């Protein structure tokens, strides 16, 4: 789910105590967090949120009229209040891929020929941007990855080629249970909270490290197993280091939508894949994500609702199976996709608040870029897929228009956003060299 750096008990301590001043003082080089964040982004503290929209949409119900953008479309109308801060990109193709298996291409830019093709060997946009943020101004949580029924069953978790969108470059884990997500991010952890905890934790990890070293010595002739041990050691190293403290602006109080699910989902990983809870889970995950992003706990987040050609029941009317409905009546499917836009509006509304990290007084939404992108259309074509973004990334992106980018590909979009987020071109070389200059400010 997450890629946070510090151990959670220390985060929790900060959350409980709300020691904003202490958190700031703890940062190296004497820079306050907001200053460092802006430094990393070249201005306002930017955020990136990726919101894949599975199964596409009928063009006539998705694209607003170029002559009357404010009217939006059947699907996007729930976002009408934010039209001036949206940019539609019509004519975008997913390069090197087609059909639902393009889920692995859309944010990586890697060509994927079919469901069984090997995974990309490059990082997806979220991880590229997280690398840059990490290098310039680490957040307490490097990136946050949540799901809402991200597979048709927990036993289909990360089913090869169908339910993985984000890569580092191996598939990124996602948390499907909002109660688990909340507790891991904001909730009580148990465990020792006394001062020597970190030392004892380091001792415990040190014992594991020593045993890994011994085990590695027995695997010289079993290279495949040796790699597991090497990676395991690297993982322990990754969680051993300290990280940036949690900003004091983070609210650790319960979230109503999460608490409403606690009775059903606490300690119940399988329950988070219950179709009947899709709507409440979506709301709760959005609320968790919004809080973490607003307070600066993380500046990179993704939300995967459903899976490629998955059939989660979308609670519109009596409920429609998502993929099956995509191949039926376009109007009915548009109403289904509108539901997702309504949920996105719930997220956007929570981001449209003063940014606690931005002394210039901007909103989190203005400092963010939220990307809605489909892997294919209902026809399975991955050409001219539905695409828009909301938020100008702190002024780095132009908003308020509909651009015909016919012939451009998702790689150009990825490159454009990477640049807007301050990513060095060398770190995003796999997105190619083309940008959508019409949307770069």
């Amino acid at each position, binding site marked *: 789910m997450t890629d946070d750096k510090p151990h959670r*008990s220390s985060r929790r301590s900060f959350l409980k105590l709300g020691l904003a001043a202490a958190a700031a003082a703890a940062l190296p080089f004497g820079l306050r967090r907001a200053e460092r964040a802006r430094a990393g982004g070249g201005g306002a503290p930017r955020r990136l949120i990726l919101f894949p929209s599975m199964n596409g949409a009928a063009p006539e119900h998705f694209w607003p009229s170029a002559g009357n953008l404010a009217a939006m479309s059947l699907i996007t109308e729930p976002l009408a209040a934010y039209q001036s801060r949206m940019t539609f990109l019509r004519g975008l193709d997913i390069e090197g891929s087609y059909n639902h298996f393009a889920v692995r291409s859309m944010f990586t830019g890697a060509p994927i020929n079919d469901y069984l093709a090997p995974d990309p060997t490059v990082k997806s946009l979220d991880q590229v941007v997280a690398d840059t943020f990490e290098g310039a101004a680490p957040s307490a949580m490097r990136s946050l990855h949540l799901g809402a029924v991200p597979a048709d069953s927990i036993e289909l*978790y990360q089913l*090869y080629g169908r339910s993985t969108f984000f890569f580092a470059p*191996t598939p990124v884990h996602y948390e499907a249970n909002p109660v688990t997500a909340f507790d*891991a991010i904001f909730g009580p952890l148990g465990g020792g909270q006394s001062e020597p905890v970190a030392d*004892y*934790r380091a001792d415990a990890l040190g*014992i594991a490290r*020593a045993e890994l070293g011994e085990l590695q010595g027995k695997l010289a002739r079993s290279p495949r197993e040796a790699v597991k041990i090497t990676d395991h050691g690297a993982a322990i190293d990754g969680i051993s280091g300290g990280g940036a403290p949690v900003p004091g602006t983070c609210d650790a109080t319960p979230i109503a939508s999460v608490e409403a699910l606690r009775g059903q989902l606490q300690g119940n990983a399988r329950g988070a894949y219950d179709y009947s809870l899709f709507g409440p889970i979506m709301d709760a995950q959005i609320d968790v994500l919004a809080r973490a992003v607003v307070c600066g706990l993380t500046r990179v987040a993704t939300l995967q609702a459903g899976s490629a050609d998955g059939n989660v029941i979308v609670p519109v009317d009596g409920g429609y199976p998502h993929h099956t409905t995509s191949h039926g009546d376009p109007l009915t499917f548009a109403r289904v996709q509108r539901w997702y836009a309504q949920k996105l509006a719930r997220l956007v509304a929570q981001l449209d608040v003063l940014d606690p990290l931005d002394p210039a007084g901007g909103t989190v939404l203005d400092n963010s870029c939220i990307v809605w992108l489909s892997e294919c259309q209902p026809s399975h074509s991955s050409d001219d897929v539905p695409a828009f973004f909301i938020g100008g990334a702190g002024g780095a992106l132009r908003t308020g228009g509909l651009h015909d980018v016919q012939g451009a590909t998702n790689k150009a979009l990825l490159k454009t956003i990477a640049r807007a987020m301050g990513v060095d071109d060398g770190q995003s070389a796999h997105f190619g060299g083309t940008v959508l200059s019409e949307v770069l400010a």
Partner: protein
Amino acid sequence: MSGARVIGVAGLIGLAGCWGTISGGGSDDGVSPDDPRELCADGDTDKPGPRLLRRLTAAELDTTVRGALGLTPAEWAGPSVPADAAAQNGFTNNVDRLIVDETYARGLLTTAEQVAEVAVGPGVLPRVLPCASAGGQACAQTFLDTVGRRLYRRPLTDAERQRYLDLLARVSTTDDFATWVRWATVAMLQSPHVVYRSELGEPEGDGYRLTGHEVATALAFALTGAPPDDALLDRAAAGGLDTPEGVAAAARELAIDPATGTARPALRAVFQGFARQWLNLSALPNISKNPAAFPGFTPDVRAAMGAETEAFLDQIVFEQGGGVADLLTAPVSYVPDVLAAYYGWGGGGGVAAERPAGWGVGLLAQGSVLAVNAGDAHTSPTQRGLLVRERLLCSDLPPPPPVVIDLPPPTGAETTRERYELHASDPSCAGCHVQIDPIGFTLEHLDAGGRYRELENGLPIDDRGAIHGLDEAPADGLAVRGPDELATALATRPEVAECAAAFVASYAYGLDHHDTSCLVTSPAIDLAEGELGLVDYVLALTATPHFTRRVD
């Protein structure tokens, strides 16, 4: 090997590319994380496989912690690790998909700290470690000898023990003994010797022999889903698992209740978990049907379908000692009341009921299987055919091409078969779909809700079909008609039992099913020839060379 015939799942029903019609398949420029290891490419049979480190699944981690500390669900809810990633064959225990990356490591650390806090609680610590109130090095040794041994599934080495005693020395300068127990527990749950099931062995000849404790671990997880208990660890320590006879005796004791002569509940549960993934039934709890077409398909009915299949498997496999052919052809069902009413059969109560004529027999006629492999309003001969091809015949089909032609939408004036026959008439579809759809056509009298229908849209149903690609079958496939003939035809084919054998071994060994056929050659043939039922086949897996020996 004991049979004349050599099986090999990888080449058994080689439909890759569907005879060249579509140039699909995976890309050549890389490998998938769970691509087969090609263990069977050399044609050898009954061979030992590679040395393995098998990261515990979430369920295995759960049973490991509970087994070591005796924690109840009320005391500890379970691990906080990510879900287990599904392999290409749908199994979630593939040895190459289960790794420790940073997210998993963090979840494991969180889990460990949660467990440790519970373990040192006032209601638990005295139970887990009665000497804890006195503390000291002797008590620490006791902890290592009990909880430590259960978690490591073997006695700790001197070097390992010393690290924990060093930790005790550090902790003792400022904190109490319970603090050491807490952090020793955290450390143990990070240990690679706990996190991975070791199948590395010790050098012997030109290969390796698994240690007694490794064999104990493999036996316990394969047959009970849990780690070895103290008695089995004692047995391993005493050399009781160093001989084939010793392994066989231990396997039987773990699997079979001597009082009844039938399988213990733990083995039944393990098999149900296998069957759920083998038959693609994990999505059953979420499926729904168009309420206009299937007004009776309620959540209760859906749940009862799951119960029906579990009862069917339990009866045929465990109570009757059946094999694959029995699974395919048993003419009975065990339907709860709600399902009996939905089917319109009468009866119910979960007792054996003979299936009415036309409703099919065996696994493929189960309501759960039919409903999962169908749309919400209409059947899917393609999904049903794929199930048979991939899960019963081990066919390697290429993925669908990027551009798929949509079938004509249903008008209510034709049969489903008529719509799907577009697949056969379009050359871009026919190459593969001719291998798939004709199998599904034989099930067309069984609707998307799992019930018999005489007509569809008032039209007669054509349930003639064919199975292509079988050994010594006609070029245009083995003709079959209706669900009974399909089941019978499949039941008589050795390829089917051998395929099932490879999948069972895949689940037991954590390897892709393409890689297991050469590890289980003899028992698979015995299963195919009806000399073994499925329970005995599972037990036979513990007698293969792979179970106790490995090679590089």
